[in-house]
């Protein structure tokens, strides 16, 4: 790479790194913002991660069609938008990056200091995990994601084709959702307002300080008046831009960070509890079912012998030594036998032990950490001046804390029931073994001793009932648990010692308690969600260009790019300038010209408004003759990288294309008025003053292929990846002084 850079003589501006064939056409490609890694999505919906030298790191296929892909700003995870509206997060190889530890938190998360690593979801026994490919330890990488990478605050923002924009912190904790259809923008100098219909979001970009969000979407702009008499009229359908004020994210960054850190962990742990409960329920039900299957033949034997009794009574009389009925004798000696008892015993007691293990290793630690984290959240919620703004409600959090405490008590009670049930079962089986030996007149002194009282209890309460299953059963049927009077009394007494004021929790099953806990968490976390959503509002609307056909299909994608640049002229705080760059579809303009549009200053900045600078400006740029814009991307320092395709391609030739960089801020921008009333599509006015792009004056490099859409440009790394129509990938180095970049990195 370095030798390449040294002998470049500025004759050809961009160094070709390599030119490789690819297996299938790529539809989305994004460079990692921190490292030389390129994530690509192919037409057949596979995600590939390649190094700069084109070495492939991994490939996964989510099984659904992928519509978008985006790197997290720290470059450690990618978010993938799927066709069904879900977003999945993927951690790139966890060992890949270790060198990013600069940003220390203002407030520390105390949990890792006091607790060992949080428990994971228990594996269902019997299910053998298949090969350990990337997807299989998805769970592990997710864990990695949720623990190590909370160092930096970030917000994943996504828009969908129904006009909803979702915000989630770290990409996992949903914090807000707005719909562009709900917004209405007043038209200046009239009582009319404008709102939107059929909006489909095309691109969203959050500014670096998280204070503004630019949304590009296609949709119908509807003008309506306050008077109900006049009918709404469609003002125009096409591509629009919208600025949303998301300053709550910027201003309340620390608070949101802390909230999300605790809350998302709590949600993870709730999943652990849910999974533990279902695993336990399944295992225990299986074991007990095989137990009752073995013993059901006793019932038939009893009826066959024309006895009017139940198995329990028969066993009791056997225990009492009164008589051994022929039915029981036959059942024990012939049907079940010693081996049978041992087998069932192993099954049931093994399940009991396994359940205890799950409680110890998963359920209890998870419940404990939840209670701890909830306690931390309660502390935050009491800091009203800071946290009420983001909707952390003191009473709701206090309620959730109580519930998490009750959960801990319930887990303990469940554990006691489980242990004694297991003990009762093994005691019963010991007794049965002894009985069989006696009945068969074999020596029985080698056997384990049993407790006859426990056998009585077993027959009475456990033989054909299953309290463990009922405690774990999440069904809606409400069986109040019968607590003994002493415990009940004790819990009532505890109220005045500061115990839980809701003493009824003793009557709830473990599963029920969990449901209540979960719903109390949901309630507590919904409050910030709605509060934040309410604080996001629209600032400005800008119609960009009309579109004749709606909605956009995947095939005629309009290339567009949004970027924020730091304003160098401003010496003080971080002051951002926004650039929106897009290709204007040929049919949108009157003269069928071949243009790209660049808009800047769309964002409202109070300081800029005061200085009268950076009002909305735009320019139309006419493409050189014979070329068609295939894709474009904003690059660093307000540069635009254009990918142009030659229009006169004979089908048999490989085609010709070129890539060029233009300096956007040197273009003749013309001010555009923000008011919407005059005429809708301001681009039409600019057509007269459009600038012509001259291929001679700019940095340009021709590409010997016909190129297709995704142009992946990395501003931080200075590289671009171009895809040719004939399944080739070409990587160019945009930066001339590559050595310097390498040095600063080392």
């Amino acid at each position: 790479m370095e030798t390449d850079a040294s002998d470049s003589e500025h004759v050809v501006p961009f160094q070709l790194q390599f030119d490789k064939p690819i297996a299938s056409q790529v539809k989305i490609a994004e460079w990692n913002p921190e490292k030389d890694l390129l994530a690509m999505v192919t037409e057949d919906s596979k995600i590939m991660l390649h190094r700069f030298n084109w070495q492939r790191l991994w490939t996964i296929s989510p099984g659904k069609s992928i519509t978008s892909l985006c790197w997290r700003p720290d470059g450690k995870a990618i978010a993938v938008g799927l066709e069904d509206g879900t977003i999945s997060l993927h951690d790139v190889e966890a060992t890949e990056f270790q060198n990013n530890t600069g940003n220390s938190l203002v407030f520390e998360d105390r949990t890792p200091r006091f607790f060992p690593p949080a428990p994971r979801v228990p594996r269902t026994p019997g299910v053998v995990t298949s090969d350990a490919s990337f997807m299989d330890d998805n769970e592990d990488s997710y864990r990695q994601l949720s623990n190590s990478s909370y160092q930096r605050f970030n917000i994943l923002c996504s828009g969908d084709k129904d006009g909803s924009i979702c915000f989630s912190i770290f990409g996992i904790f949903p914090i807000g959702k707005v719909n562009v259809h709900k917004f209405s923008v007043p038209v200046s100098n009239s009582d009319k307002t404008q709102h939107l219909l059929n909006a489909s979001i095309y691109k969203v970009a959050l500014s670096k300080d998280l204070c503004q969000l630019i949304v590009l979407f296609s949709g119908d702009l509807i003008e309506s008046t306050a008077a109900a008499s006049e009918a709404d009229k469609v003002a125009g359908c096409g591509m629009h831009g919208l600025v949303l004020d998301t300053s709550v994210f910027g201003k309340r960054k620390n608070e949101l960070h802390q909230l999300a850190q605790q809350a998302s962990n709590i949600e993870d742990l709730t999943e652990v509890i849910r999974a533990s409960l279902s695993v336990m329920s399944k295992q225990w039900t299986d074991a007990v079912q095989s137990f009752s299957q073995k013993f059901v033949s006793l019932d038939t034997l009893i009826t066959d012998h024309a006895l009017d009794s139940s198995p329990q009574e028969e066993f009791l009389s056997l225990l009492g030594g009164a008589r051994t009925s022929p039915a029981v004798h036959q059942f024990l000696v012939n049907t079940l036998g010693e081996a049978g008892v041992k087998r069932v015993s192993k099954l049931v007691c093994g399940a009991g032990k396994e359940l205890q293990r799950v409680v110890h290793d998963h359920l209890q630690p998870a419940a404990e950490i939840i209670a701890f984290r909830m306690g931390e959240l309660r502390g935050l919620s009491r800091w009203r001046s800071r946290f009420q703004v983001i909707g952390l409600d003191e009473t709701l959090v206090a309620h959730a804390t109580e519930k998490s405490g009750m959960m801990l008590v319930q887990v303990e009670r469940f554990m006691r029931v489980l242990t004694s049930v297991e003990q009762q079962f093994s005691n019963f089986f010991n007794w049965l073994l002894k009985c069989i030996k006696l009945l068969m007149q074999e020596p029985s002194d080698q056997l384990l001793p049993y407790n006859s009282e426990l056998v009585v209890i077993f027959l009475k309460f456990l033989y054909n009932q299953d309290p463990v299953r009922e405690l774990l059963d999440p069904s809606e049927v409400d069986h109040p648990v019968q607590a003994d009077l002493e415990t009940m009394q004790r819990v009532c007494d505890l109220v005045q010692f500061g115990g839980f004021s809701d003493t009824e929790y003793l009557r709830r099953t473990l599963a029920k308690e969990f449901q209540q806990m979960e719903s109390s968490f949901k309630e507590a976390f919904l409050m910030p969600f709605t509060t934040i959503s309410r604080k996001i509002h629209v600032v400005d609307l800008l119609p960009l260009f009309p579109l004749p056909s709606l909605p956009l299909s995947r095939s005629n994608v309009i290339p567009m790019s949004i970027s924020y640049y730091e304003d160098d002229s401003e010496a003080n705080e971080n002051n951002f300038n926004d650039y929106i760059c897009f290709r204007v579809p040929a049919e949108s303009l009157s003269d069928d010209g071949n243009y790209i549009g660049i808009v800047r200053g769309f964002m409202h900045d109070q300081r800029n408004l005061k200085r009268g600078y950076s009002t909305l400006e735009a320019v139309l740029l006419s493409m050189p003759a014979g070329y068609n814009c295939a894709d474009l991307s904003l690059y660093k320092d307000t540069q635009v990288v254009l990918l142009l395709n030659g229009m006169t391609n004979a089908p048999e030739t490989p085609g010709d294309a070129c890539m060029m960089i233009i300096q956007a801020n040197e273009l003749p921008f013309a001010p555009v008025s923000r008011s919407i009333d005059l005429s809708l599509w301001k681009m039409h006015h600019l057509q007269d003053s459009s600038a012509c792009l001259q291929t001679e004056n700019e940095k340009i490099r021709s590409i010997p292929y016909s190129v297709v859409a995704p142009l992946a440009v990395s501003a931080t790394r200075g590289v671009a990846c171009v895809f040719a129509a004939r399944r080739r990938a070409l990587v160019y180095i945009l930066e001339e002084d590559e050595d310097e970049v390498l040095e600063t990195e080392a």
Partner: protein
Amino acid sequence: MQLRSNFMDGCSFPLNGFEVILNRIKKLAPELHRVHFLHYLTCLYHDDYFGALENLRRFFDYSVGIGGFDITPVPSRSKGFERYETGLLCLGMLQFHFGHPKQALEVLTEAVRVSQQQSNDSCLAYTLATICTLSSEMGSSSTSGMLGTSYSPTATIGTSLYFKQQLFVLLREALKRAESLKLKRLVASNRLAMAKFDLMNVQRPLLSFGPKASMKLRTCPVTVCKQELRSCLHLVSEYGSESPTMTIEGAFSTAWLNNLRRPMGASVLSLDNGVGESSNAFQFCAQPSSIPRSVLQLVGSSYLVRATAWEIYGSASLARVNSLVFATCYLDASSSSDAALVHAKLIQHLATFQGYKDAFSALKVAEQKFLSISRPVILLLKLQLLHERALHRGNLKLALQLCNELGVLASPFNGVDNQLKIEASMRHARTLLAAKQYRQASEVAQSLFCLCYQFNMQVENASVLLLLAEIHKKSGNAVLGLPYALASLSFCQSFNLDLLEASAKVTLAELWLSLGTNHAKRALTLLHGAFPMVLGHGGLELRARARLIEAQCYLCEPNYSVVEDSEIVLDALKQASDEFEVLEYHEMAAEAFYLMAMVYNKLGQLEEREEASDSFKKHILALENPQEEEEEDEDEPVSEMLVEKN
């Protein structure tokens, strides 16, 4: 031991009647030496320690060489001599109870020797565990020499640090031995002891050489949580493998018969077999548990340790929840001292988070609940609460009296009851501080620091340092206070005492603020850094103090203008004054109301101003006449309480 504990929390029985029976048995069957042991237990139960000691001695005298002691945990019972070491073990424990650690250690050392001789491994393991508890509960000065005689060749070195290391080695040794012998219960209790040790003591690598060995001193909460406390819980599932017949036949029948008297408990003996059973599978849950009591006791006490751990580490909610878990699930199986302790913890929690009113009414209930044996815990709690309240109300005479009472509770022997002694002099220093006798207060605190240093009690040291900072702050010498506060802060950080750290930060903020208004911003940043901890886990007093200082910081800051943003100050002051009022902390409440009145005055809201100044006046008057308030206390005047106790 197990029998003893069973006796202690079983139902009460009259001493005299039982003694008559015992004496009769002694007469009828003189060869039955167990009677002496039983007698010893009875005496113990009725707090007759001298009678107990005598009977225990008698038991040894008779049983040496004969073997009448059948509740040893050893499975093999063939040898005759092995009862002797068990007896020694019991004697050692009793000696310690009297506050004779020297004799106790002597006896236990002998027990170790004998059990080594007899190769009675389990007894050795138990003895080791006992020595561990013993030496962890008392200071080093009197024991280090003793320990050396059997465990270490360097018997004479007696520095406390060395002693702690020895204890650590001992604990590990005991744990290892118990594990190899597969004594599950002992393993669990050793783990608990280990947790207690790790909780309060700095982890010091036993072998640290070279430049890479970390010299950082810190506690390690993760090990406490994971290795010690969580693994202790495994006992509940493992006990079955240790001894299958730990339950005594007949115990359930007794419970059933008892249940017959109750309306719904008679389900076992009822005849309606199979009628209501399908409707409710949970009747089982209402049955007495078949898990052995000793197991439950151990598991339960692990929750108590957790609660204590969270009190130290600073998580109010988890401290409370763990106490509640114990009180809900393990109270029936626990020893009465544990039960009293958990109630004391809950009442303490009430007092710090909800004020004295609730705490005292709960205390009353607790006093009725726990009578003879566990009285000390409750009594101690009562004195603590009364002292705290007297301090807040400004009744310093009473406060001084109360902390003297507290000091008397501790054993007069050097090195025993160190915790209690430290607490008593801590409270003494605070009372002196409240009385504005700064010199005396700092003298007491200094000597306290020396004591803590001598016994290597770093955790206590942190709070003593903070107290010293507080004294300097109150005496108006903030510059001198700063190093103390910073030292306390660094202690807290390395020992994970988060709550204490937060309060050290609050004190530090106060110190900065008192250095001048140009430090207000720094103080505010410090304070806000501590806020999540203070508000989440701090008691009423700490919270209110922090808010008051926050308001003061805002008011001092040059850029802040009351007229523009009065809400932020008023909100803080309102919350502070509310919380101080709940605590009846007149001095601080008056200060909060004073500031509030000033702010309202500036804003021109005269009505609110008058209201605040009225409250201010009320609290100042109450502060000046503390006696009146005590007399108002409806049911039980303090003086009466003290008389009753004496």
